[in-house]
């Protein structure tokens, strides 16, 4: 399973970026191999629709789970249409986020957790 985590930098030592659409990078974690693959979030500079663009990039990456802080309405709709599960409330380092996710700490988002254009969490 591939897990996409919104991250502050392209590094295994990065922290979770609380924003989904406008995070700097996604770090794609493969649960089989425990390897991280970085994916730059080109949507971070979009004038609008960042969440939609980021969600399409996640879908192309093959990830089926997203770990992030919050998710806006358009990102939620787009990820859901791609059958990608979204877990919100993540923070701290990527390793902590993965551990917490596997321990079942984060709740699955059943809708947007913030409004459009929410910005920094």
């Amino acid at each position, binding site marked *: 399973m591939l897990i996409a985590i919104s991250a502050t930098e392209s590094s295994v030592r990065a922290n979770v970026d609380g924003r989904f659409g406008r995070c700097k990078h996604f770090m794609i974690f493969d649960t089989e191999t425990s390897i991280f693959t970085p994916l730059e979030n080109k*949507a971070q500079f*979009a*004038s*609008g*629709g*960042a969440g*939609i*663009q980021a*969600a*399409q990039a996640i*879908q192309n990456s093959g990830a089926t789970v997203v770990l992030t802080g919050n998710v806006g309405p*358009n990102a939620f*709709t*787009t990820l859901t*249409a*791609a*059958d990608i599960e979204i877990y919100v409330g993540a923070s701290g380092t990527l390793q902590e986020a993965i551990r917490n996710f596997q321990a079942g700490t984060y709740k699955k988002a059943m809708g947007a957790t913030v409004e459009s254009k929410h910005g920094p969490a």
Partner: protein
Amino acid sequence: MMSTFEKNKPLVIAVASGKGGTGKTTVAVNLARTIRFAHIFDCDVEEPNVHLFLKPKITARQRVEVKVPKIDMHRCNLCRACADFCTYNALAVMPREVLVFPEICHSCGGCMLVCPQDAIREVGYEIGALEKGSIGTIGFTHGILHTGKPVGIPIIKKVKEQVGTSGIAIIDAPPGTSCAMVESVEGSDFCILVTEPTPFGLNDLKLAVEALCLLKIPFGVVINRSGVGNDDVRTYCAQEEIPVVMELPDDIRIARAYARGETILDALPEYRPLFTGLYDRIKELCRPGGKL
């Protein structure tokens, strides 16, 4: 500059400002009341407020729609050409469907053109409304952008389509110098820039002056709440040879009337000559061979 007293052509006077809350609507409404046979157009579609003062009888209402794409999933092969083209990310191609986000769409029609499957057609998407009416001899039109809809420009365009072929049109523009302000004042014969004699007022006045110079629209300045602040606006106007077409004093009674939703002409008729003078001054400045 433009000659304005041609036959079959209205005299269009826009009221704008850089800074918000300087008194655009106060000036527009009282000028309309002074001219009596004017038609007032409230182009501040995000927050129209002329109706609060003129209390018009609304006689017609129409929906304002923009065109947004609709995907025919029987034809679509999920090729992504549309989503790749859309610079606003209003389309998302997902495994089973194409998502359309109408509130993000700018109605450019590009997705329809690039679709190799001919699977996209345009459908209407309501973003607001247009209301028309009158108060005595004054005509009234305003646009309303529905809450949550981000782009009011199409509504401003619709409001301005209602400007007749004769008579006097007064356009109450939205504040600032953004697209909405430019759309509202464009094509006007004269623009009144309302400001207040404060550093904020002056800063934003300069921005509005720059915009109007680019648009090549003749303009003059109304100094509202004259008596507060400092003399910098007056000095600036003198230096730049910008006519100050009216000064409205800082009078607590004007603020009280405003708060009650009354026009100055009704509440404080002693100010009528000031507005008559404003109208005369504008006519003088617009006349062929006038100062501008």
